[in-house]
């Protein structure tokens, strides 16, 4: 525990983050300042239309907390999986030449495992829309 008190400022660790800390403090401070100022200075004219939730200009009706079919959620999750797969291709594409055949086999293995998972969810009926 004593080490926390013995930190040297001239070393490379904590003090070099000072600009970052300043920037964070400025960002947070600006947000707080502007929010407070708008509340203090802005005129308050409340009408029932103004107090409604903004839903792209369409009148809102009903509660958003309704049970929803799990299928939508499942599809969204599976989409995220494929999204992440594509993310992995970017670094590979950038280093395509440097990685050579080793990289190619590694990526092929990755895609192979991914396809295994895909067949698995297909066979398990995750994408079957009708019951």
């Amino acid at each position: 525990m004593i080490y926390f008190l013995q930190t040297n400022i001239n070393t490379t660790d904590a003090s070099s983050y000072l600009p970052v800390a300043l920037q964070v403090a400025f960002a947070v401070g600006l947000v707080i300042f502007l929010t407070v100022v708008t509340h203090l200075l802005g005129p308050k004219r409340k009408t029932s239309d103004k107090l409604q939730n903004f839903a792209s200009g369409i009148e809102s009706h009903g509660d958003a907390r309704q049970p929803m079919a799990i299928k939508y959620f499942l599809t969204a999750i599976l989409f995220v999986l494929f999204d992440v797969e594509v993310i992995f291709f970017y670094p590979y594409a950038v280093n395509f030449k440097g990685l050579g055949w080793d990289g190619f086999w590694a990526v092929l293995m990755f895609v192979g495992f991914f396809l295994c998972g895909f067949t698995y969810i297909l066979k398990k009926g995750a994408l079957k829309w009708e019951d």
Partner: protein
Amino acid sequence: MNALIISALLGVVMMFSSFLLKDRSTVRSMAIAGLLLLLVVNVLEMNGVEFFNINTRDMIVFDRFALLFNTIAFLSTLLYLLLSAKEMAKVGVYFADYLALIFFILCGVILVSSFKSLLILFLGIEIISIPLYILTGSDKRNLKSNEAALKYFLLGTFSTGLMLMGIALIYGAQGSFYSVDISKIAGETPSALLIAGMLLLFFSMSFKVSAAPFHFWTPDVYDGAPTVFTSFMATIVKAAVFVAFIRLFDEAFGLLHLQWQLLVAVITALTLFIGNITAVFQQSVKRMLAYSSIAQAGFMMLSLYAMNADAKEGLMLYVAAYSFATIGIFAVLIKMSDYTFEGFNGFAKHQPLLAATTTIFLLSLAGIPLTAGFLSKFYMLKAALGTGKHLWLVIVAVLMAAVSVYYYFRVIQAMYFKEGEGQPMEVSKPFKWTLVVLAALIILLGIFPNILLSWLYF
């Protein structure tokens, strides 16, 4: 490396068998054959036969310590599947998927027992944790199982977050993920960043092994999860994380040993105290075993505290003794319908063989001589004495071992000295024989511990 790749492939095979094979007993025999294969290739690797030669840039190194632990883990899992695989089918309809998850967890176990880089440690911990969250909540219609899964998931991910933060701070301080580089400390005192990172890693690992101030999730999760999976969680997984814990603090922070020794001593004493004292007041055997697993974790923490050759030998023996005994007790417990102490009343009359083997398992957990539990506790205390400091910790450990006798013997007393009508149980011949083998292993290790320990050196 053999076991790592084969267990990953076996996981995929089990996944596919969930829709290719309709027959459950085929899937079960496949899983058991797969584990036998894992055991064989691992033993082969201990004798220098490697099938795969992959350049991991020394991020994973399979030394004798890792290989011996993997052998113990595979043997425990094999016995666990032989005893309880049939019960898994009763949890839910996804029998083959559960087995696939268990093989994936074994991948994580192999990674955390052999890591040399913090990245691999993190990967391994995650590969262990995520399937466990699923297995905990696998009894979907049971509210307690759902609650346990949610609690485990939230707290588990939080502690993984702490771990990542710690790894990031350590990288900031030392500029490397390798334990070798982390252990090199420039100058007289380590930097504040390194110490902060080490403490965060220490807290998150303590959480994973359920050491005292971080143990609150354990009873609820172990109690709520289906009993088959509690058995796996409390034994193989916990042991693996302990091995990772020891490896991390030995290789990366070994030079700072004197600085963190007192902290570990306090946490060890606290774990022993809370685990044992709370276990005394439990009414359900399953919950008692959950607290007993905290108490046993306290004893395993002694090896972290001492960190010498005795401690490493002791940990191996402890892991084997604890896993075998706990798997055995859980295997019997799964078959019962009443989990309270009263449920065991008159058990010896109706199931004499099961009662006898359960007694051996309980004696081993309590640390009675001639069982493996005694010698493993002995090694731990010897290692702790070997440091020559903090004698109070050893005294606390001995006292707490005495307390533990009370609640383990309560089960034995209920089985032998109380009257009860007994519960209807279906017990097959192979089940009985496996239990006998397990009990024999425990007694064998209690008399000749060197059968196991000599593997560390030769």
